[in-house]
C-alpha cells in the first residue's frame, strides 16, 4: 500500500533524484572532461578530434580537414580563449606505427604588436601553425616550419594551399549524455541532444591530401601540452609519454590530454588509468592499456567473449583515428562532423545490444565551405 501523500507527489509529477549527486561534471562523452588531471582548465580539455574530406568529389578527396576542439559545453555569450601557454598539436602517423611523422603545432598569443592597430580590448588572439616532420614531429621541442600565421575568429590562408580557422564554433558533437549517465534509458521519451546550444573552441586545419605523405593510410590524434615547473610536480602526472627536457632547471612540457577515436578513454579506461592514458603515447597503448580495455569490452559484450574483446581491443588500440584518405571519409574511416559516432561505437562495443542513443544529428547545419563547423550560438 502506498502512502497517500507520497502518491499525490507522484501524481504531481514532482521528482527528485539524481541519487547522490555526482562529483563528476556534466560532460563526459567523446572526450569531454575525460581527465582527472589536477589543474587542467577547459581550454586544455580536448572534446573531439575529426579528420575528413570536405566532400566526395575528386577535388574534395584532395583535401583533408583536421579538427581539434577544446573547451566543452561553452555557453552562448561566453568568449573563452585558447591558452597562450599550451601547445595544441594534431599528429599524423603516415606509416602505421602509431608514431607521429607529421605534427601540426598550434600556439596562441595575446600580445598586441606595435604593427597592429587593433584596440586593446580586441578579443582575438594571434595564432601560429608550425609543421613538424620526421624526428621533429616526435619531439615536443622539435623545430618546425611556420605554415600559417594570423588571428583567431578569421580564416587564414597558409602555405601550400592550407587553410586555418581557430575560434568559437558550435559544438558539432551530438549525444544524449543524460541517458549515458543513467538518468533515463536510451531512446525513451526523454531523449535529447545534451550538447544542443553549446559551443566549443575549434582549431580547423585543412591541408592537401598529398602533403600527408605517400601512403593513403594515416592515423590522426591530438594532444595538448603545457609547461610545468620541473621541480616538485613529478608525482602529479603518472604514466608514460611525458616530454621531459634534459635540463632540470627548465620548464618541461607535459602532455595533459590526448584523443584519437571518440570515447576510448572515456568509456574503456578505468578512472585510475585515465591520467596515464592522457599522458601516454599511442604506440604504448597496447602494452599499457589493453587489459583494461579488454575487461570493459568483455563486460559490455552480451556474449562476454574474451576472444572478441581481445580482437576489438587490438583494433581500438593504439588510440588513433585511422583514415584511408583515398576513400570518402565516414567513421570508422576518419571522422566527419555529421558522423554518428555514438551509435557506431555503442553498437560495436555491445555487439548491437545498444544500437544507439536516438540522437542522430547536430542541432544546427554545418557549413558547406571552410571552416565547415557551424557558427557559435
Amino acid at each position, binding site marked *: 500500500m502506498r502512502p497517500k501523500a*507520497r*502518491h499525490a507527489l507522484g*501524481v504531481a509529477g*514532482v521528482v527528485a533524484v*539524481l541519487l547522490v549527486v555526482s562529483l563528476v561534471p556534466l560532460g563526459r562523452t567523446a572526450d569531454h572532461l575525460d581527465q582527472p588531471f589536477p589543474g587542467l582548465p577547459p581550454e586544455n580539455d580536448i572534446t573531439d578530434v575529426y579528420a575528413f574530406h570536405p566532400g566526395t568529389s575528386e577535388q574534395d578527396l584532395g583535401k583533408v580537414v583536421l579538427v581539434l576542439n577544446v573547451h566543452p559545453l561553452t555557453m552562448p555569450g561566453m568568449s573563452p580563449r585558447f591558452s597562450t601557454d599550451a601547445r595544441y598539436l594534431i599528429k599524423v602517423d603516415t606509416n602505421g606505427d602509431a608514431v607521429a611523422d607529421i605534427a601540426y603545432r598550434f600556439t596562441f598569443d595575446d600580445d598586441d604588436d606595435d604593427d597592429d592597430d587593433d584596440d586593446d580590448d580586441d578579443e582575438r588572439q594571434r595564432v601560429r601553425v608550425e609543421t613538424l616532420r620526421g624526428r621533429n614531429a616526435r619531439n615536443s621541442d622539435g623545430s618546425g616550419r611556420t605554415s600559417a600565421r594570423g588571428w583567431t575568429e578569421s580564416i587564414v590562408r597558409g602555405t601550400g594551399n592550407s587553410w586555418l580557422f581557430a575560434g568559437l564554433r558550435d559544438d558539432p558533437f551530438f549525444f544524449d549524455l543524460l541517458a549515458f549517465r543513467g538518468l533515463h534509458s536510451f531512446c525513451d521519451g526523454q*531523449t*535529447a541532444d*545534451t550538447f544542443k546550444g553549446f559551443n566549443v573552441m575549434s582549431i580547423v586545419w585543412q591541408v592537401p591530401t598529398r602533403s600527408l605523405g605517400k601512403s593513403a593510410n594515416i592515423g590522426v590524434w591530438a594532444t595538448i601540452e603545457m609547461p610545468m615547473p620541473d621541480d616538485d610536480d613529478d608525482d602529479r602526472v603518472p604514466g608514460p609519454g611525458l616530454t621531459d627536457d634534459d635540463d632540470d632547471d627548465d620548464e618541461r612540457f607535459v602532455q595533459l590530454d590526448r584523443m584519437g577515436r571518440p570515447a576510448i578513454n572515456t568509456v574503456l579506461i578505468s578512472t*585510475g588509468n585515465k591520467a596515464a592514458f592522457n599522458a601516454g603515447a599511442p604506440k604504448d597503448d597496447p602494452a599499457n592499456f589493453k587489459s583494461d580495455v579488454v575487461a570493459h569490452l568483455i563486460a559490455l559484450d552480451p556474449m562476454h567473449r574474451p576472444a572478441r574483446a581481445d580482437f576489438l581491443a587490438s583494433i581500438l588500440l593504439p588510440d588513433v583515428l585511422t583514415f584511408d584518405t583515398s576513400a570518402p571519409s565516414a567513421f570508422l574511416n576518419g571522422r566527419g562532423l555529421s558522423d554518428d559516432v555514438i551509435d557506431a561505437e555503442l553498437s560495436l562495443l555491445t555487439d548491437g545490444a545498444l544500437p544507439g542513443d536516438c540522437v542522430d544529428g547536430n542541432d544546427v547545419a554545418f557549413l558547406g565551405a571552410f571552416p565547415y563547423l557551424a557558427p557559435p550560438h
Partner: protein
Amino acid sequence: MGRAIRIVSLALAIVIAGSAMLLVASRLSSPESVSIATYRHSGSLPVWVARDVGFFAGRGIGVKLVEFSGGALAAHALLTGGVEAATFPSVLALQKVSAGASLRLLHATADLLPGTSQLLARADLNIRSLEDLQDRTVGFEALESACSPCEAFRQAIDRVGVRIVPVAVPDYKIADAFRAGTVEAAVVSQPFNSLAVEDGVAYVVRDPRLGPGGDAAVAAFGSVANGSSDSEWLASAGLWAEEAFLKTRPAVARKVSLALADAAAWLRDPGNGQAARDILIRYAGGLGTMEFFHRASAAVLSTTTWRSYPDGYTDWQGLQAQADAYEGMRLLDSPLDVRAVVSTPWFEP
C-alpha cells in the same frame, strides 16, 4: 607401441587428476569472487570503500571491479550478465524493472539531505522569493531531457505562476555563468552549489516553498518515517543484481550486502572523513585541481547520510516515492510496487 600409449595415457591421467585437485584446492582456499560494475558517481562510493578498505575481503569475498563512466553501461553490463551486480541510478533500474527486467536491490546505502540541490541567485541581485524570479534568466542543467532536480524546482516555480527564462547551464560552469551574467539564478546540485556560495558568486534562495534547506528536489519526496523517531529521505546508492544471482548465490549476495553495511558504518564515522574523500576523488575525480576536488568531495559528502542495514532492510518507502514520481514523469511503463524489487532471500518486507 601399446606400452607407449599406456604410459602416455597414464601420464595424462595423472596430469588431469593433479590439475583437478589443484583447481579444487584453489577454490577452497581462495575467497568467493563476485564481479561488480560501478560508475563515476558518489553513489558507487560504498562499493569502492568496501573494496579499498577491505570489507569485501573481510567477508571472504573477492571483487572484480569494472568501472564505467556512465550508469547506462553499468546497467547494460549487469543485464547482459557481464557482471553480477552493479551500481547505477535508481531511475534507470526502475525503468528496466518496469520493462520486465528481474532486477533486485541488493543493498541500499545512502540517503540525501536537503541542500543536495538548491536555487541560487547571483550575489549582486536581491532575489529572496520565487516571485522575485519573474522574467529572470534561470539556469537548469538540462531543459529538454530528464533532470529530476530541475523538474522539481521548475514545478515549484510553476506553482506560484512565475514566468522565467530558462537557460541550459552545466552545473560545473555555474560560477562562470553567474560572473558572465548569463543567468541571474540557477538550480544547481552538489558540489557546485556549495562551491558557488563559498566563492561568493551566489547565495541560496530559501523560499519556504522550496522546502527545508531550499531543496525542492528532496522536499518533493518529503521525509519517510522509518519506524523510529528518525526520518529518511530516499534510498539511493543502490547495488543492483538480477534475481537469478540472488537465487543461485545467496550466500555470496548476503556477504556482499554485509560488506556494504560495513562500508556504510565506516562512512558514518567522522574519523574516516578524509579517507572517504580520498577514495571518492580516486574513483570519481573529474576536471579541477586537487584543492577543488577536496572541496567538492567534502560538499558532496556533507549532504549524504550513509544509512544501511545488514539485515537487508532498504528504504523501500523512499524508493516507492521515487517510482511514483517517475511514473508521473512517464518514465515508467506502468506503476511499480517496489517491495518486490527490494526483496532478498534473507529479507521479507
